[in-house]
């Protein structure tokens, strides 16, 4: 080999190594142990550490470091999918009997924070409780995700280190739901109510102190089952209710890390301009703005009226007006490239609300006229929404859009205490709403928000055709066929204006540059474990 060739080869090799180092900065540096991470927390923990009893990031984010799942999404990979699931309490797992049995082989020598051994009984106890099995030995006070496990027929613990989930029909998505931050394993020997005031987990950090309304402090779990982890000595979640103070604290270095979902485009631009050492990662929140139209009573039991409303709302204008560009358009599943199941651009453009605004609004007026509404007899509706700024901004935009097609909408602000009772009882006509979804998975989303009879199907939309499609995609083992079914469902939902999807919120997640290995995922609910995070200072 000539000298020139050797030189070129070496140069190429050096460039390749350099590229790898640049694209994966954390890998390029050896992680350092020690230090305490100061983390933003926007409110005190609702329901303490009992993740199974809430559906809010305000609990999941600060409680995740205490607990462990059977499986979890790889904390270092932003995109979540079946391929990024790694074992946590389960060393490995295996689908058997054509995806009817999911067998987990558990790690040995795992102990709870109180020293008790972790066994398969804990897993059975937890998920029997969540799915409300007839022989469950405990009951959750509030159980928002029971429907996730509706397809589980039985959970067996044949030996201390093996657990079998027996399913009624194949359901590959079960693994996705088990990998969510919403699916930790509780200790069978600890009363479930105790998780509301403290935490006995198997996670990388132990709760040191929870000062109500102030902070949650963790110390490193030196008996953590992954050797060499966690890197940090501790975590400190600081409850700061005022948004201005929260970001002032981040900017001044009192905090190292922001709260998931709190960073808007505008705030991120301001903070990073003032302090360039704060880094921003743009990620999908897996939270969408949608419009609830009560399909159980007039006028929205008429699909023409629902579709007219959907047509009237310009999705791209919403992204600019409500989020100053800090959101993306999409249908029922998180849009690409953030999500795996989102519709392709060409399909999205053919849906109501995505065409040229003037033409879409003309179509809306025509549909309203067909339904008997026009200038002489305008559609008058009451728009109920939660009395919180992020809901109100969105509601104001929707009202303005509807005005342009002759719909007279009045805003009714609903206090938080009344919001979910009102939505669940369907005591509203129309309601701008926000929906957060745990993992980016069709089962987690469709069964919860669109299935007939689901308590969180607030609109009451119920279609036999859609239900069949939802069941079909759920048990489809061929990935391509399943994707096609999921697309079909999304198109149908938008055409029926089941729950018109307006946009998907982006998170401008902020952290100081000395915080390493904290990778925001495409869902705010799944990356709070913190065992890989380290401080470069």
């Amino acid at each position: 080999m000539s000298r020139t060739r050797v030189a070129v080869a070496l140069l190429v090799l050096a460039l390749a190594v350099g590229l790898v180092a640049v694209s994966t900065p954390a890998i390029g540096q050896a992680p350092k142990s020690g230090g305490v991470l100061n983390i933003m927390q926007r409110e005190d923990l609702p329901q303490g550490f009992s993740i199974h009893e809430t559906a809010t990031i305000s609990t999941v984010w600060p409680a995740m470091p205490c607990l462990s799942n059977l499986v979890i999404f790889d904390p270092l990979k932003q995109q979540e999918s079946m391929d990024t699931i790694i074992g946590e309490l389960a060393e490995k797992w295996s689908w058997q009997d054509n995806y009817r049995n999911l067998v987990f082989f558990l790690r040995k020598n795992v102990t709870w924070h109180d020293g008790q051994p972790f066994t398969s009984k804990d897993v059975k106890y937890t998920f029997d409780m969540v799915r409300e099995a007839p022989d469950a030995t405990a009951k959750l006070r509030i159980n928002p995700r029971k429907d996730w496990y509706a397809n589980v027929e039985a959970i067996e613990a044949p030996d201390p280190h093996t657990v079998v989930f027996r399913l009624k029909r194949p359901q590959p998505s079960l693994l996705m739901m088990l990998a969510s931050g919403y699916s930790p394993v509780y200790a069978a020997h600890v009363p479930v109510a105790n998780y509301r005031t403290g935490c006995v987990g198997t996670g990388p950090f132990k709760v040191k102190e929870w000062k109500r309304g102030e902070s949650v402090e963790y110390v490193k779990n030196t008996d953590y089952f992954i050797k060499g982890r966690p890197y940090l000595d501790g975590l400190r979640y600081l409850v700061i209710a005022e948004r201005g103070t929260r970001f002032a604290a981040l900017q001044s270095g009192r905090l190292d890390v922001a709260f998931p979902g709190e960073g808007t485009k505008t705030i991120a631009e301001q903070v990073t301009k003032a302090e360039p050492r704060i880094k921003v990662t743009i990620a999908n929140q897996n939270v969408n703005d949608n419009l609830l139209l009560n399909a159980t009573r007039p006028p929205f039991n008429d699909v023409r009226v629902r579709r007219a409303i959907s047509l009237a709302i310009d999705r791209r204008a919403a992204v600019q007006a409500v989020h100053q560009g800090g959101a993306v358009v999409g249908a029922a599943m998180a849009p690409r490239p953030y999500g795996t199941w989102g519709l392709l651009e060409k399909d999205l453009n053919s849906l109501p609300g995505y065409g040229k605004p003037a033409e879409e609004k003309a179509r809306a007026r025509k549909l309203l006229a067909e339904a008997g509404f026009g200038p002489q007899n305008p559609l008058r509706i009451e728009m109920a929404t939660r009395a919180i700024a992020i809901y109100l901004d969105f509601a104001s935009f929707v009202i303005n859009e509807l005005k342009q097609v002759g719909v007279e909408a009045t805003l009714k602000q609903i206090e938080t205490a009344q919001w979910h009772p009102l939505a669940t009882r369907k005591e509203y006509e129309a309601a701008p709403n926000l929906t957060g979804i745990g993992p980016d998975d069709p089962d987690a989303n469709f069964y919860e928000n669109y299935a007939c009879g689901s308590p969180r199907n607030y609109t009451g939309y119920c279609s036999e055709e859609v239900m069949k499609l939802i069941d079909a995609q759920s048990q489809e083992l061929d990935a391509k066929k399943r994707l096609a079914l999921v697309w079909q469902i999304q198109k149908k939902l938008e055409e029926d204006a089941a729950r018109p999807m307006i946009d998907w919120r982006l998170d401008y997640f902020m952290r100081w540059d000395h915080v390493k290995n904290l990778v925001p995922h495409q869902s705010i609910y799944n990356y709070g474990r913190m065992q890989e995070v380290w401080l470069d200072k």
Partner: protein
Amino acid sequence: MLTLFGMSVVIFLLLRLAPGNIVDILFATGGYVSEADKQAIMKELGLDRPIWRQYVDWLGEIFTGNLGKSYRYDLPAWEVIRPLVPVTVELAILSTIIAVLLGVPTGVVSAVRQDTALDYALRVFSLAGLSMPSFWLGMVIILALVAWAGWIPPVTYVSPTTDFKIHAVQFLLPALAVGYRSSALITRITRSAMLEVLREDYIRTAWAKGQRGQAVIWGHALKNAMLPVITVIGIEFAFLIGGLVVTETVFNLPGVARFLVQAILWRDYPVVQNLVMFIAIVVVLSNLAVDLLYGWLDPRVRYGD
């Protein structure tokens, strides 16, 4: 006692008139509602009992020194409330001291130099204090600090025994924001009371007898002008105990007022009822203290004759 009894009825009823209860909030965090589960939790928390029974039980608990259990935290209400009280009391006292130190001299000087450039300047200064809400001023202080110094006080409470210097800084900034606003009111009351007193015959006599200006103003006039000022200070202090909501929120201090708002939003009846009763007691006691001060400042006012 009668005032406190009346307060207890009002607090209890107003809380129940607000729509929803803790169970609705709990379900809100779960994003759904189940009527059957809701009834079970209502029973668990004792919310299924008749209203009058809940009231009687609460009164009974107060008299036995048991303040009940926080619905939200599942802890004794007193355990939740206890750490909040010193924070708010300290902030209120510090704010009042700043308000008095700033407000009284400013009011006196303004009255003595009536209609001069200094008087106008001081009146503008006090009017600005009245016009600027303390939370706004607090936020401006925070944002200015972070923008210019890249620094803000700690966002978690630091006790004086842990680090007195940090503790002092942590309390001084909110106390300045609140104290400035209160001082504005005190300035205006002091000024008008002083103007009135300075026109009295006995002051004219003091001047005529050739007494020193300082002795006349600070010794004779101010003492006699203090009655309305003391009343305002008492009212302001009592107001601060429950009225520091936004200042405590902006400076992230774990005090009574900030916690009270959270407890109201959560419909945590035992915590709210007892916190409001605590505030009511402080108001009653500060009024009593003001009344007693009247007797000390003005010998013409006599109690028990």
